[in-house]
């Protein structure tokens, strides 16, 4: 949206070739995949990591300010909260990415 004015200062964008479109789409996809892996890593960490594999050691400490054993909290409360946050972060990231690569849908409907 707020891109810097291009140096050539052409009044309108030159016709983009098919090859450029394909390249842009490939870059869009690569960025999408990167977001996906990062978010899935967090998804795995809070549920399978903290909630299952590390739950024993984590239970030795309490969630600060409460009497929840930390591993138990992740398994029955915390992981669910994190899941919700992850989806909304993904939505935000992807909406921005769609804009940046101009692949977003029309505002109609």
């Amino acid at each position, binding site marked *: 949206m707020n891109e810097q004015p291009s140096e050539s200062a052409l009044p309108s964008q030159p016709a983009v070739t098919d090859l450029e479109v394909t390249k842009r789409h490939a870059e869009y*996809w690569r960025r999408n995949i990167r977001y996906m892996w990062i978010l899935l890593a967090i*998804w795995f960490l809070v549920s399978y990591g903290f909630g299952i594999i590390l739950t024993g050691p984590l239970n030795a400490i309490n*969630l600060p300010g409460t009497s929840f054993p930390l591993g138990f909290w992740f398994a*029955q409360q915390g992981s*669910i*909260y994190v899941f919700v946050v992850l989806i909304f972060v993904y939505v935000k990231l992807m*909406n921005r990415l769609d804009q940046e690569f101009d*692949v977003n849908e029309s505002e109609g409907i």
Partner: protein
Amino acid sequence: MTVQAWTFVLVAASFTLYIGIAVWSRATSTKDFYVAGTGVSPLANGMATAADWMSAASFISMAGLISFMGYDGSVYLMGWTGGYVLLALLLAPYLRKYGAFTVPDFVGDRYYSQTARIVAVVCAIFVSFTYVAGQMRGVGIVFGRFLEVDVNVGVIIGCFIVLFYAVLGGMKGITYTQVAQYCVLIFAYMVPAIFLSMMITGNPIPQLGLGGTDQGTGMALLERLNGLHQELGFAAYTSGTKSMLDVFFITAALMVGTAGLPHVIIRFYTVPRVRDARISVGWALVFIALLYTTAPAVAVFARTNLINSVADTPYTEMPEWFTNWEATGLLEFDDANGDGRVQFVGPDSPMTNELTVDRDIMVLANPEIANLPAWVVGLVAAGGLAAALSTAAGLLLVVSSAVSHDLLKRAFLPAITEKGELLTARISAAVAVVIAGYFGINPPGFVAQVVAFAFGLAASSFFPVIILGIFSKRTTREGAILGMISGVTLTAAYIVYFRLIHPELDNAANWWFGISPEGIGTVGMLVNFLVTLTVSRFTPPPPPHVQELVELIRIPKGASGPSEAH
């Protein structure tokens, strides 16, 4: 008014509401019938998804299950919510972009094969029927307990209601009824939970009360419950007894199964755009999380309350709810040592346990345990029915669209008219309701158990081929067909072997690597991935138009109205 009068009034009022919505939003085209005309707002779709998703098992059985399983119950909490992250990141936006009507639609087109389509149809029908049987049973139980109607009569009443709004309104009617059903069920779940939380911890928010202090003793609630468990010879509540590997595999099977359930996936076809599909998954999980973070709190409150009121207490001093529920047979006391006191003890205790408690009571009896007014009891009944009916309707729609759209329109009778297809969709929905009712009257097992298996089947059939269909262009039709067949066969065989043929062998010593039948769906999924990838390497690549289709799915632009292509 009495409890029963309140229940009648509230149940009748909620049913009238559902029917009213159905009449108002009846379907006029196949697009209305299958995907609600793709005009549902993301927020409404999120709410409908939550109701569609949360079944009688979530509403009635889950808190009770967790109450008895303690930490092990986490498999349901994480498993039934974590799948939404997979849906949002890996499936919903792309399937919406593709703009099909059903899941077999996508599988058939992406894998350029009628065989793949038929295999997907069979899997979808199989999964949905497994799941719907449990729902109809749930309807029967609620009617039986609260309205003192025979369970079978309850099932038949439930069938008529679903029949009416599913057949008339299709996806459009179902969606807006589910929005209403979500409101009913979440209200019915939260009211008793908030009262219980106040009563036990003094904190009105159950999620916080769970980590608070027990007002009776001044101790941390979870510590207090662990202490009681130790005294009575149960395993500590916060650590559980299942092996870590089994917990891992069950959680994974439920998560992946969630993301592979056809009735959940098709909900994201109903929104207008790709970005709506993404945010809609987020809203769905918000609405689900509200109940799912409350359930473990209810489990602990109910457990503590149960132990406090009954353990080692003379039978004659039992509270009123105890004797009420005893009459239903869901609570049984057998004074083995004849001392007139209730010994409620675990496997590590030297004494014999004398009390058998059906887990479904934990939610259903909450209002009585907390001494709540009669209308709250009626509300819980209406909520349980809302949960069961909304899920049943969503599942029946999958069955009906699988028959009318995937089998007739796309495979055997492509010349069928729009009007003819809509009529077939309505007839198959009606037939499906009757079959579901039969299973409700002759149930195949525990509600929650049956439902858990539907996830294993969904995990091992759809999830891998849909993911690979989007993320790997090289995946071929041969790979996908063999992958689905091997995944689902292995999973079904393992479950049938241990649960039906040799239930006496159903224990950790005989399971593969200690993985229980609930967790085998994860293995089935891995096998499916492995077979699909391997076979794809050795078969000719998909034709160019399919590879282009995959490119197209990955980019949101141009999603509005692709369904016209059908």
